[in-house]
């Protein structure tokens, strides 16, 4: 009984104490409550002001994978040439397959296989154009590429036909190397040269065995070929750039002696940054000198040059013109002079239609004229081309 009384007293005292404390709190905390209320109101307003947007469940980035980039590019042509047996022709000129990927944190790999028209037989034949392992993490601004590649001689040679604005490569490329340029198996080292004026300067040195062409051949008895290129690039304004390059090559030729070549390339580009898909202008020229030793006492000193201009006057439309003069590396007496006009329509970057007219003056054969229509079409993920 005493126990229950004691408990009741404690409870009553506790209730009195709580009521007193509450009354005291009510008196002294009016301001604090107002602030709390204000804060609550504010936070409710804030919650209302930045509405929580109901997001759809994030879709998995399902295309992420370690698969390499794969692409296929077709090059279909239709042509009329005023001389030769087949004046009118329709043909698939080339099909290219490219596979590219990062190998590991230190390198990337690129492979390009072609299925192209054999110039001798006219039949399609498979070929390997590019197979390179390129470093991405060498110190001292160096980059090393090993495998088969297009050496950096001049501005055009590094391009594949589908990446060149004109349907055919310039005459100097065709006469001094091959219709698709020069290929090499070996090593390429390039270095970003530090300079006090802080412009882009890249020195490339390449050594290896050249795939035989008009000037250089795949050397026997371990003879190697050497190619060097110095690229200088300047931003003239925000909209215009200038590139000046110097090239040199040395290697064995068909006579068993050596060929020496030198080149200068100059490229001016204008493209207004704000409307860069609507207008552009390019002027590009190359000069090539060749010194081919034919025997112990005789050397053929020849040269070739081209100059081209291309103007983009609308988002999808381009016009261009090119002048070519080219001798032949082993015959001082032969030369081609050609004038070319180009119209290009590009519905998207994956489909390019071009119509080209060319007149060629030859001092060793009949002059000719020709019209070629080309359509380039690509699918898959193709690495962007260099500037």
């Amino acid at each position: 009984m005493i126990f229950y009384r004691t408990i009741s007293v404690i409870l009553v005292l506790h209730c009195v104490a709580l009521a007193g404390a509450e009354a005291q709190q009510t008196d002294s905390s009016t301001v604090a409550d107002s602030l709390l209320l204000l804060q609550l109101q504010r936070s409710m307003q804030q919650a209302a002001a930045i509405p929580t947007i109901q997001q759809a469940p994030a879709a998995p980035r399902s295309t992420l994978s370690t698969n390499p980039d794969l692409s296929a590019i077709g090059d279909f042509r239709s042509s009329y040439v005023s001389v030769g047996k087949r004046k009118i022709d329709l043909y698939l000129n080339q099909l290219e397959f490219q596979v590219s990927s990062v190998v590991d944190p230190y390198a990337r790999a690129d492979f390009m296989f072609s299925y192209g028209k054999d110039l001798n037989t006219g039949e399609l034949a498979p070929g390997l154009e590019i197979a390179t392992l390129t470093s991405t993490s060498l110190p001292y601004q160096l980059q090393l590429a090993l495998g088969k590649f297009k050496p950096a001689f001049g501005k055009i040679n590094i391009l594949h036909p589908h990446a060149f604005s004109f349907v055919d490569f310039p005459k100097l490329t065709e006469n001094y190397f091959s219709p698709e340029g020069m290929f090499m198996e070996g090593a390429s080292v390039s270095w970003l040269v530090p300079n006090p004026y802080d412009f882009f300067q890249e020195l490339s040195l390449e050594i290896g065995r050249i795939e035989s062409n008009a000037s250089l051949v795949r050397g026997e008895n371990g003879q190697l070929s050497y190619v060097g290129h110095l690229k200088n690039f300047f931003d003239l304004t925000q909209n215009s750039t200038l590139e000046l390059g110097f090239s040199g090559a040395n290697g064995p030729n068909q006579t068993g002696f050596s060929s020496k070549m030198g080149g200068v390339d100059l490229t001016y580009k204008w493209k207004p940054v704000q409307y860069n898909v609507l207008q552009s202008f390019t002027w590009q020229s190359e000069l090539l000198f060749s010194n081919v030793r034919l025997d112990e006492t005789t050397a053929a000193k020849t040269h070739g040059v081209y100059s081209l201009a291309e103007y983009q006057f609308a988002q999808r439309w381009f016009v261009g013109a090119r002048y070519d003069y080219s001798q032949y590396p082993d015959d001082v007496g032969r030369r081609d002079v050609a004038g070319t006009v180009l119209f290009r329509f590009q519905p998207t970057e994956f489909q390019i239609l071009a119509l080209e007219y060319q007149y060629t003056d030859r001092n060793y054969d009949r002059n000719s004229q020709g019209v070629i229509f080309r359509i380039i079409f690509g699918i898959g993920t193709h690495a962007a081309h260099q500037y």
Partner: protein
Amino acid sequence: MMNKRATLFLFLPVVCLLLSSSALAQLKVVTTLTDLQSITSLIGGDKVDVFAIATGYQNPHFVDPKPSYILKLSRADVFVTVGLDLEIGWVPPLLNSARNSKIQKGGDGYVDASVNIPLLQVPTSASRGQGDIHVFGNPHYWLDPQNGKIIAKNIFDALVRVDPDRRSFYEANLKKFNETIDAKTREWTEKLRPYAGTKVIAYHNEWPYFEQRFGLQIVDFLEPKPGIPPTPSQLLKVINEMKRDHIKIIIISPYFTTESADMVARNAGGKVVTIATSVGANEKIKTYYDLFEYNISQLIEALR
């Protein structure tokens, strides 16, 4: 003995100078877009030197990979990209030639700003027949200021990875940025609240994040498919839509010409409003905050 001491005294200031200069050295950051440059500057303050490759009035899908950018990337400590394949046409050739392992994908200095962004318009199937679509989702996510906080966090993480000693400095700036962007988002949302649900036409499909945040309703585009220039049939369709639904506004970015938009506006009785997709689109837009201030003021003026 004296010579050794003298040498020591001579070298000591040099060593101190070298140490202090390395401590004061700014991180070199290269970003693809000016918006990422602005956010990096707000987080990194005077501890970072930031260069943006594209200008604010340039179409970010089409930037020429000039060799001069390779030079910048070769010296960068951090590289920040929008990702989601927006820059697929120009970033890979630049990174491949940069000779800088720090900023390659997987390196400490590589920042894909899209990480953790709640993506919109992620396609369930992808074909180039649909035009220039982005297989990972619409990449113009920086146009929602709340996504700016996620971008800032991604940049902050990289700055801390590369420069852990200044963590508290970057952290304070990140906090300040988040608070500012929250406050401003509230302000901007309030300003546009009266116009919520207003139907508008856009030139290109680059506004879904902006549209979602601020309650506009983009009902059609002048491009028939992303990246395909306007066709007469598409323009006619849009004119009819505008007349039928009383749509008065066509929004366009600074890098598209206004001819087709003007023509549609003339025929449909609407008006063309050029708003910015990036910082630096015009002189008034100097920061990420200015980007929204400008766009919202332009829209309100047009919608009034």
